[in-house]
């Protein structure tokens, strides 16, 4: 079904290592995949599985140590040109803004990356549009600095930046891991809205397979630098015997699970009551 769509990212046997000699660590180990235009792909795994390094490779911040990594069929050479198309939201909303400048001026700064920078009025209009897209009244943040907003509001600001800039691809690096459940639901909504309204290709990095299931077209499960399982949410969640996937599923504390932690007096008591 995806064959008629063009390939955005293509990775062929890419590896990324850090350090040298005996201290060498392999963050990404011989990984291959294609990501198609307009997809939401989730990369799921525990901390240290290499998912963030993979995100940085897609963003062009790292080059692969081995293998071929292409964006739109070409190697990433000109970073500024790459960031015209590929943008990111980060994990820690609290450290994402410079506290010495207003939020608004920093949202407007995003347009500096564009080769054809729009006029001032156009930028202002698009930032307003971006803010409205994440349900923030532009006048509410007029003259405000980052430390006057909550973590959830700041995470929205980062998404407003994406709605304003409208890149072709968004790399969302754990945008939900440091916010409350309520804000998390919001962020997932906005990611889906970006896909539906702006046909954006989204790579969503998370450690929670439940979230991945909700938003994604396809899921990659990562462990120890390798993609150990991939496919549609149904394929990955329901019809898998792959151990790492099963463990990730098993580890989410969910209400329907009878005995989340096994063999403890505590959880047995719970079942009995």
């Amino acid at each position: 079904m995806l064959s008629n769509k063009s390939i955005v990212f293509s990775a062929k046997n890419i590896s990324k290592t850090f350090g040298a000699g005996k201290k060498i660590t392999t963050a990404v180990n011989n990984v291959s995949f294609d990501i198609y235009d307009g997809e939401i792909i989730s990369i799921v795994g525990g901390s240290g599985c290499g998912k963030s390094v993979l995100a940085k490779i897609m963003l062009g911040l790292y080059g692969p140590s081995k293998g071929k990594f292409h964006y739109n069929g070409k190697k990433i050479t000109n970073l500024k040109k790459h960031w015209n198309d590929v943008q990111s939201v980060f994990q820690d909303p609290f450290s994402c803004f410079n506290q010495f400048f207003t939020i608004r001026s920093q949202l407007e700064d995003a347009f500096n990356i564009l080769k054809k920078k729009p006029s001032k009025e156009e930028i202002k209009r698009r930032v307003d549009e971006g803010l409205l897209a994440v349900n923030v009244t532009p006048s509410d943040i007029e003259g405000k600095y980052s430390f006057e907003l909550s973590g959830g509001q700041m995470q929205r600001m980062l998404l407003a930046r994406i709605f304003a800039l409208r890149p072709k691809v968004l790399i969302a690096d754990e945008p939900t891991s440091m916010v409350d459940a309520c804000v998390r639901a919001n962020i997932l909504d906005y990611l889906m809205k970006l896909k539906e309204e702006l046909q954006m290709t989204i790579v969503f990095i998370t450690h929670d397979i439940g979230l991945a299931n909700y938003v994604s077209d396809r899921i990659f499960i990562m462990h120890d630098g390798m993609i150990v399982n991939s496919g549609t949410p149904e394929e990955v969640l329901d019809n898998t015997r792959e151990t790492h996937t099963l463990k990730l599923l098993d580890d989410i504390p969910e209400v329907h699970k009878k005995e989340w932690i096994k063999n403890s007096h505590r959880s047995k008591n719970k079942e009995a009551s």
Partner: protein
Amino acid sequence: MSENIFEVENLSLHYLGRFGDKTHAVTDVSFNMKQGEILGIAGESGCGKSTLVSGLMGMCIPPLYPTSGDVRVRGESLMNRTVEDIRSNVLAQKVSMIPQGAFNALNPVRKIKDIAADVIAAHQKPGSSMKASEIYERLRSRFDLFGMDTDRVLNSFPIQLTAGERQRSVIGISTLLNPQMVIADEPTSALDVSTQKEVIKMIFDLLDKGIFSTMIFITHELPLLYHVADNIAIMYAGEIVEKGTAEQVVKDPRHPYTKALMGAMLSSEKSQRTRKPVAIEGAPPSLAKKIVGCRFAERCSFARPECKKNTQNIRMVGDREVRCEYAQ
């Protein structure tokens, strides 16, 4: 053992601003805990959870001040005592805290065993001095319970450990003196799901082995609390809005805010998968101003006009507490 080990009575706390302005971060919180009980406290960030933790330990460090109310551990009040008094006579032995950021809690230039040895040394009875080797043996026998490579962890600096090992070390150190009460302030929020489960498993192990038995567990993840806690209290804008058993609060919430919180949760279970999580729009009211009426009224989908006027008090619905006069 049915007497209350921990009693909180109408506790209110406020921050004093630089210009004499007060922010009432915690308002009128009351609950009792019995030996062996695990109480979960949940709410959004900024709801006063972390302030409440300071208050529950008696650690009101300016600009935080107690407004009114009392906190008692086995009948001993923790209010209006000096920070030094609390530090040397209460913390670690009677009430101990497991903080969220393990990295900030551990001194980066000291090894785990030294940090832990300090805790033992600081709370020794005068006159009884333990040898370094004795202290190390004691640490070893305790850390052996945690399912880690004990010798390596004890002889490492915090930066040499994984996030999970660090958090487990912090828990190990906080519970070293077998405290009567443990307050865990979002101990797993910074961890991935698998590490979170390991940490919870370790806490359960400690409970099973009787290292400590009574705990307050704070998080914004209601499903996690469901598995960890016996009873759950939901906080909103500094107040407890609902308190009942974990079963009651999570599976059959009554307060509109609890309902909304549950609605924002996702589930990977097949039948639940397509249900859309609904975020609660808007933001909690500012606690720097006097609030009239129900604090949740602005965001409540069941709100009636009079909700904005009538202050809501805790009332019993069945055998649970709910702060909403319309809750069934």
